[in-house]
């Protein structure tokens, strides 16, 4: 699949102060039955966000909202940066989780650590997960929870966050993934450029380990 190039200017930061947020919480299973990639946003964090029980096909605009949940706080409406705690995205491999985050409008997630599969799934969908030190995260939480929400600019090219008070925070990102994000590359297309190498590998392996090439369709 090809993704849109990453593009984010200044955005509001939404602070979700929980550790180990799992993908079941990000998008509960009853919404995984859709066969499309879009339309998951209204059910992002469904069980925390609404007071009633979420079912597919509801009109979410009319459902009772949990006023204590951060996504419902008027300060954070329109936020596209999610600030959260360690091990974000643990649990199921469902790519519906990044689809839901993206569909809601989050393009950047900042946390001290992420679960592996989720981290990878983010890049595949044009979301930038940023890992920062626990102490920096604490700092960001205190700024993001004040009266006036924190805004920041994500400068992926130069790998830094620029806060509204002028503070700059550098971050690391894998060069290949950065390039894919910036250019919106189609990684299947990239892999297929190596078609000849894949074929050569297969020929060699077929000799070495023919039992791996049994055709299950036969």
């Amino acid at each position, binding site marked *: 699949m090809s993704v849109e190039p990453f593009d984010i200017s200044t955005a509001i930061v939404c602070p979700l102060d929980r550790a180990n947020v*799992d993908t079941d919480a990000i998008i509960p299973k009853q919404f995984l039955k859709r066969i499309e990639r879009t339309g998951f946003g209204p059910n992002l964090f469904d069980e925390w966000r609404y007071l009633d029980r979420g079912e597919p096909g509801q009109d979410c605009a009319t459902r009772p909202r949990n006023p204590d949940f951060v996504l419902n706080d008027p300060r954070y409406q329109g936020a596209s940066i999610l600030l959260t705690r360690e091990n974000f995205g643990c649990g199921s491999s469902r790519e519906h989780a990044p689809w839901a985050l993206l569909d809601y409008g989050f393009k950047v997630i900042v946390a001290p650590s992420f679960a592996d599969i989720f981290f990878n799934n983010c890049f595949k969908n044009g979301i930038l997960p940023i890992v920062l030190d626990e102490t920096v995260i604490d700092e960001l939480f205190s700024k993001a929870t004040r009266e006036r929400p924190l805004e920041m600019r994500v400068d992926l090219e130069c790998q830094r966050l620029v806060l509204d008070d002028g503070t700059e925070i550098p971050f690391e990102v894998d060069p290949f993934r950065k390039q894919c994000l910036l250019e919106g590359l189609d990684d299947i297309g990239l892999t297929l450029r190596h078609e000849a190498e894949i074929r050569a590998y297969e020929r060699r392996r077929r000799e070495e380990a023919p039992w791996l090439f049994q055709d299950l369709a036969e």
Partner: protein
Amino acid sequence: MAPKTLYEKLWDTHVVRTDPDGTALLYIDRHLLHEVTSPQAFEGLRLAGRRPWRPGANLATADHNVPTRERAAGIPDPVSRLQVETLERNCREFAIPEFGMHDRRQGIVHVIGPEQGLTLPGMTLVCGDSHTSTHGALGALAFGIGTSEVEHVLATQCLIQKRARTLRVQVDGTLAPGVTAKDLILAIIGEMGTAGGTGHAIEFAGEAVRRLSVEGRMTLCNMAIEAGARAGFVAVDETTLDYVRGRAYAPKGELWERAAASWRRLHSDPGARFDREVRLRGDAVEPQVTWGTSPEMVVSVRAAVPDPEAEADPVKAAGMRRALEYMDLTPGTPIQQIAIDKVFIGSCTNSRIEDLREAAAVLRGGRVAASVKQALVVPGSGPVKAQAEAEGLDRVFEQAGFEWREPGCSMCLAMNADRLEPGERCASTSNRNFEGRQGAGGRTHLVSPAMAAAAALAGRFVDVRTLGD
């Protein structure tokens, strides 16, 4: 040659090419698919006008959404039905082999792979499902992927990967009677934490692991993901070969001899270096029960619900408080005083024949406590169900008051009709106790099959080792 870890051997034999920054193209031998994480991948292929690279390297089955009773009548929920039918249509269109809902080999994707010999030692195997690590029990490199990667594997038979760090979890000594692979993996997660294995591939080793059957090793590897690792595996030994020999898709005759000879090399060489090592004593492990909403929130059945006040880390303490509130538990309550409403025996962690035998052995002649509203057994696959019936286990379960169901994921994630109602408390042999996992507001306690059966009889958690005392 420098000594290699098992991970390095598996990795090295599957690298097609490596870029200077270490990004590799890894060849995938086997790809398993199910209905929930595949539709958008097939749609992606269709939009790009691509065909599967090697259709015969894939196998699909429907497991997450399928009803576990009156299956002949089809799927009543239209949304679930559409998803299962979409899988069938996609498999037909792209020539992907499938065990459909009515195939007698159908079952949970991680149960049927090893059972049919679709999973072989030395393979790379992936599936759009985090518990794919299960297949590592056979000495394979197996891990879960997202839907974009499902599409990538379909189209190219490869994945773009970086080498993981290696971690050996060494379990010395032997497990005590009544203590199972499930208790061991819960104890390991309790020790390491749910993020303890992040970025690592775990090799489970040591005497206690060697002595496990392949089915027990699957339980162990299944939950490697709950320790944060992407992959978990066990070296090949004669136990592995005995398990694989004669399976439907396993090599036969002369090819078997060649394969077996190469599989015997699938172990970490003496002196191989791991990035990290964790050691624990197998004989010190007791039956485990989770008390919270993350698998790391686990204690021995003889312990009590822990107190957040005693936790020094404020983020952790806050997480514990939230979990206790969700679980409606008070610190200091002995685990054995926690009463349950439902029991679920099933899931890719514990729905194989050995699991059912262990549970049935506890139940034989007993009755589920009157306070327990429902007790379910959901075998992992058609062949497991048939085998259990041939051994009369279905009768044991039914006489004890359990419902005997058709294979599928069922109440492990409650995408079908089997679920907890808000506030209900369940003794479950599955792998995740997240909020709402088994139904919105439901409260899950993870345990072994024997412990689940014991809890069913007592109506509360009990130490299975003292049952009948």
